[in-house]
């Protein structure tokens, strides 16, 4: 089966611009998670979708971040306007079971650099 796919792999934007990251989960996986790793620190949870609904968005840093999952398939994470501190690697993960304790399949990540 195809894995979790993230686009783009790299993005360099100027402060104040808008960037949209995309994640295509494994087909049939209802659960989709966004995480990010900033400046070599720990990977932090951003939010969790179950199908098209936001199950937990407690990790979203502020209202400049907007995540959507229209139709319960792929998801987008938009940052508008981007700030320097938003630079980092954004990971997407999906799982088949709700609250799966078997772990999750992660994408390769999008490296975002805000200059």
């Amino acid at each position: 089966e195809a894995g979790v796919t993230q686009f783009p792999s790299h993005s360099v934007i100027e402060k104040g611009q808008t960037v949209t990251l995309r994640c295509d989960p494994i087909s049939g996986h209802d659960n989709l998670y966004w995480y990010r790793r900033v400046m070599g620190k720990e990977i932090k949870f951003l939010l969790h979708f179950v199908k098209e609904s936001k199950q937990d968005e407690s990790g979203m840093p502020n209202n400049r971040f907007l995540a959507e999952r229209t139709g319960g398939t792929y998801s987008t994470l938009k940052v508008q306007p981007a700030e320097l501190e938003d630079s980092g690697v954004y990971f997407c993960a999906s799982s088949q079971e709700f609250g799966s304790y078997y772990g999750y399949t992660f994408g390769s990540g999008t490296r975002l650099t805000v200059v």
Partner: protein
Amino acid sequence: AQSVAQPEDQVNVAEGNPLTVKCTYSVSGNPYLFWYVQYPNRGLQFLLKYITGDNLVKGSYGFEAEFNKSQTSFHLKKPSALVSDSALYFCAVRARHNQGGKLIFGQGTELSVKP
């Protein structure tokens, strides 16, 4: 607050020697424990997990980890390191009561295996 600590930013090992990557956690109850590995330009790959049962867990590529409840640790080990094991390793936990499946990660440990 729930947290995961990987006290070493970098671990250097000679090929053929045993390796240990340390992880301690602070999570209420009995969490699920995971190790993930990230090779350059790749996504996070699942290595192994502890859910319940035997404290010694065996995973992919010859890695194993030992769950120590009294020390709240889950150190990753391998008896004989390979150069190809060089990568970034992340320890992660999921609180057992968290049905949404959110993972809490450590900051990562860069493993370097030299010939």
